[in-house]
């Protein structure tokens, strides 16, 4: 694919095309799809973490006015496929985690459905459950691969021998907490089963991918894909949790098929989202570095222990970034899993890189401390020439540029490296840095169609905009590929009636869909030239990636942290990130992605922590009052900058995905800044005051 060198629309600061509709409230979300005669669905969840349901008394629920049906394993239809046990709603009496759906009520109103659900009496035969992740568990196992298909373990050279021979070593264990994605819009589905003919299922679903959702749901119900339509023009955030359909989508479809012709609405409550919509596993990361006195790394190891659910494996690729980030002749990464009685973990913004750049980027700071070396210089010293492991050349790698540019903007050169020596009023002040990275991913399949309708080039692809900017950026790409003003391009996305698009995941959307749009535009011009007839139409597909290069985006995160001398409270008044992520399609939506990711990283550093009570097996702080997400008052100055980066190898646009890199490394930079402020290394997230108080006494 040739590089798009002449750009007019790409790179322009265009406002979001969907912005006005969202602000005015006229953008319709899945739950509020206007349909006549809609009914409401409310799940009943298990109150044990393992065992089986022995009794389901629905009498009181069914007696309520307005209740239309109660779905149970006894009444729900048999699904065609139960291979994915997360999605096997109401197929048997087994309970695999607390909060699992064991029944569901359909009623005239959401209030009646919810009340009736509370009246369903459930009896259990309870089995002992286990939820606690520990590195010393004797049931840890090595998964066949880690998400999505990377080897679980890698080894080069001899880490142990290199550690033993190294002049300076660090060997520490770091942990990240369990996290929940918590998009603002809850997981919601409106489902309608039209019984005419062979029947037709329509799902208005809040999803990061209409086509992947259709494929999954069609398979679960044994329907041909052409008998299922999934529609989703707008998504109120997903952060990975809407990347794959969770069980509520199956439940909504089950309910719709039980009540043919009636639209069924389901929106999970915030509390239900903590057990039914995925989460990020907690991780335990033993990180080891060996180096010579000049700071050249000779040994690098990351051994990860994390959790999955007993009913379905998800192996977060936490060790992945350490495989390619820095040069080292001796390197080892491993993943071990404990399969426990917990809800099914899944994708959350930068799975792998996000937790996997916490331990490795704090241990770099610790090594710099022991070496008496500037942490930026240490990173630069260990810059690899080619991608470690594969030996491939980088399509572009500007980590050093990001570190240097960030240092200059942040004022790093004036930094006194000593910890705990700066005080401003009642606050100890420190600064920290960490690197950031994210791969350039491209999905195998996506197709776009471009058609001239009057004066307008209509670009159709079933892509998703989860706040990422797709509504705005795809027209920019199409306009430049066609050589027309962006005002003449209209896009249509978010519907399986449009050409097939891949999931908005792995920061792959713009690369994948944009490439398909460029191919369609080129096919269009090749066939019709510059004077196409009305109705002219052409199609293009994403095409294969260039396999000769290692392709990653890089960044550097700088943090100023304040620690209160009396209380240990931590506040972060300044975050600054510099990224090298290829050509930026739209600076406005890009900035939003970067600062959103950085803020979410700050949230991970200081606040987020799903507290899973091992006695009950559920997350007890399951609402937004108790599960703290960074709020406006926690964020003062957040700056995102980017380098001009020309990379003709990634795709025709020269762009790299930017949806996830912002969250990568932020938490390490915060922990490093807190150490610099008060001298305490916090290796276990979140960085809360109780971990700092003993040192302040």
């Amino acid at each position, binding site marked *: 694919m040739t590089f798009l060198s002449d750009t007019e629309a790409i790179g322009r600061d265009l406002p979001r095309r969907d912005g006005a509709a969202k602000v005015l409230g006229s953008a319709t979300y899945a739950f509020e799809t206007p349909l006549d005669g809609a009914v409401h669905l409310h799940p009943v969840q298990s109150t044990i973490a393992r065992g089986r349901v022995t009794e389901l008394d629905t009498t009181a629920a069914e007696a309520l006015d307005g209740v239309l049906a109660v779905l149970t394993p006894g009444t729900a239809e048999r699904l065609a496929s139960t291979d994915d046990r997360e999605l096997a709603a109401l197929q048997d009496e087994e309970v695999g985690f607390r909060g699992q759906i064991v029944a569901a009520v359909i009623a005239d109103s959401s209030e009646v459905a919810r*009340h009736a659900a509370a009246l369903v009496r459930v009896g259990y035969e309870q089995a002992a459950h286990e939820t606690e992740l520990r590195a010393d568990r004797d049931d840890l196992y090595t998964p066949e691969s880690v998400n999505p298909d990377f080897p679980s373990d890698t080894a080069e050279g001899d880490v142990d021998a290199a550690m033993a021979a190294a002049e300076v070593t660090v060997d520490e264990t770091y942990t990240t907490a369990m996290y929940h994605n918590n998009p603002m819009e809850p997981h919601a589905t409106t489902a309608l089963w039209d019984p005419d003919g062979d029947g037709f299922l329509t799902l208005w679903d809040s999803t990061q991918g209409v086509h992947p959702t259709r494929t999954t749901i069609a398979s679960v119900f044994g329907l041909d894909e052409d008998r299922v339509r999934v529609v989703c023009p707008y998504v109120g955030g997903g952060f990975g949790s809407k990347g794959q359909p969770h069980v509520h989508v199956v439940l909504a479809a089950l309910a719709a098929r039980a009540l043919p012709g009636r639209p069924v609405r389901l929106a999970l409550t915030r*509390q239900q989202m903590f057990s039914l919509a995925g989460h990020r596993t907690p991780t335990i990361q033993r990180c080891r570095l060996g180096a010579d006195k000049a700071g050249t790394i000779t040994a690098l190891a990351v051994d990860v222990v994390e959790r999955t659910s007993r009913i379905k494996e998800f192996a977060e690729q936490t060790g992945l970034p350490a495989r390619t980030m820095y040069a080292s002749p001796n390197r080892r990464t491993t993943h071990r899993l404990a399969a426990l009685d917990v809800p099914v973990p899944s994708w959350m913004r930068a799975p792998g890189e996000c937790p996997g750049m916490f331990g490795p980027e704090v241990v770099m700071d610790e090594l710099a401390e022991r070496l008496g070396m500037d942490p930026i210089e240490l990173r630069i010293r260990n810059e690899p020439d080619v991608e470690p492991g594969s030996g491939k050349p980088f399509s572009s790698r500007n980590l050093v540029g990001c570190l240097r540019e960030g240092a200059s903007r942040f004022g790093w050169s004036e930094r006194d490296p000593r910890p705990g020596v700066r005080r401003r009023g009642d606050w100890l002040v420190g600064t920290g840095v960490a690197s950031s990275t994210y791969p350039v991913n491209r999905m195998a399949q996506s197709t776009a169609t471009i058609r001239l309708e009057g004066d307008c080039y209509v670009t159709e692809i079933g892509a998703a905009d989860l706040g990422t900017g797709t509504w705005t950026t795809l027209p920019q790409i199409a306009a430049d590929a066609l050589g027309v003003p962006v005002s003449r391009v209209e896009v249509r996305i978010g519907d399986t009636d449009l050409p097939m698009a891949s999931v908005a995941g792995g920061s792959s959307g713009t690369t994948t869909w944009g490439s398909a749009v460029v191919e369609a535009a080129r096919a269009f011009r090749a066939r019709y030239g510059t004077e196409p007839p009305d109705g002219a139409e052409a199609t293009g597909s994403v095409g294969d990636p260039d396999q000769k290069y290692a392709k990653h985006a890089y960044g550097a995160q700088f943090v100023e942290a304040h620690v209160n001398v*009396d209380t240990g409270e931590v506040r972060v008044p300044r975050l600054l990130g510099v990224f090298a992520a290829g050509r930026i399609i739209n600076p406005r939506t890009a900035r939003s992605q970067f600062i959103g990711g950085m803020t979410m990283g700050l949230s991970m550093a200081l606040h987020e922590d799903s507290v899973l009570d091992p*006695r009950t097996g559920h997350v*007890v702080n399951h609402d937004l009052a*108790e599960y703290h997400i960074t709020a406006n*008052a*926690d964020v003062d100055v957040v700056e995102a900058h980017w380098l001009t980066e020309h990379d003709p190898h990634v795709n025709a646009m020269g762009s790299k995905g930017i949806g996830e890199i912002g969250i990568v490394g932020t938490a390490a930079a915060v922990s490093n800044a807190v150490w610099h402020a008060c001298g305490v290394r916090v290796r276990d997230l979140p960085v809360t005051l109780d971990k700092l108080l003993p040192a302040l*006494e």
Partner: protein
Amino acid sequence: MKPFDYRHPADAAAAVRTVAADPDAVYLGGGTNLVDHLKLGVAEPDLVVGVTDLLPAEIEELGGGALRIGAGVSNSELAAHPRVREWFPVLSQALLSGASGQLRNMATTGGNPLQRTRCVYFQDVTTPCNKRTPGSGCSAIGGWTRYHAILGASDQCIAVHPSDMAVAMAALDAQVRVLGPDGERIIPFTDLHRLPGDTPERDTVLEHGELITAIDLPAQTIARRSAYRKVRDRASYAFALVSVAAALDVKDGVIADARIAFGGVAHKPWRAHRAEEALRGAAASDSSYRAAADAELADARPAEGLEGGNAFKIPLLRRTLTATLRDLAREDA
């Protein structure tokens, strides 16, 4: 949510008669806590009686520097009132440190002290809770105790009262005016809330049907030098790990008098009488403040639990009290 009836009587007296006559009736003020509980099934009343607009919504000067705050005054209005800011800054600061602007616009003076604990187990009907269902057990003991008590807890309940406003009111010797079926009575604010003991289901000494109509703040010049310090994990919109409401009167480097109450550490706003006693006549110094804190915290008992329990609250509270008093003394000089 269980269906319920809603009534809106003509006046406060009629509301009291209505609720007193029905053991399953509750008052609805700003709704910032009760509405959540209705949805969660934590509260399942048969009858909800709206009272906000039946209650006085004025702040009245009683002369000599005393104020009467109508129960219908919103938290926002109370925090912004010029007399409150001048005479009782601790109260204004406490209010502004609580919840969010939107919630403060809805929450009322009468309702705020009656909000219930945010103990996660209390708010989750799938876990045993003696406060919600007497005799069912306490899930917080041995559970997630970061936001639980270190003072005055029992083996039945270790929950804390969540209000910030109430901590300031306790420090200020406020008086609560209550209307009941048999007429009006006045309860010292520090006696309004109770410790859990064997009956944690009872947050306050109010009898069923009693309605707070106003809160009086007696004149006290000491309160003009007062402050509220709330320590929390997030800079806004988070409940206190610990909080301190304090007023200090220092003359020639010696503490003449002090008013202190703690939040986030007990089933009630914790008036720190022992600390106040220890401070009177002492030098205005960090060592005096720490000694006062130690006097009050002598009986403190941390709640062991997940993620290290809450033992950190003892040094945290000592340090927060010390810092708050130090700042006030500095201001006083």
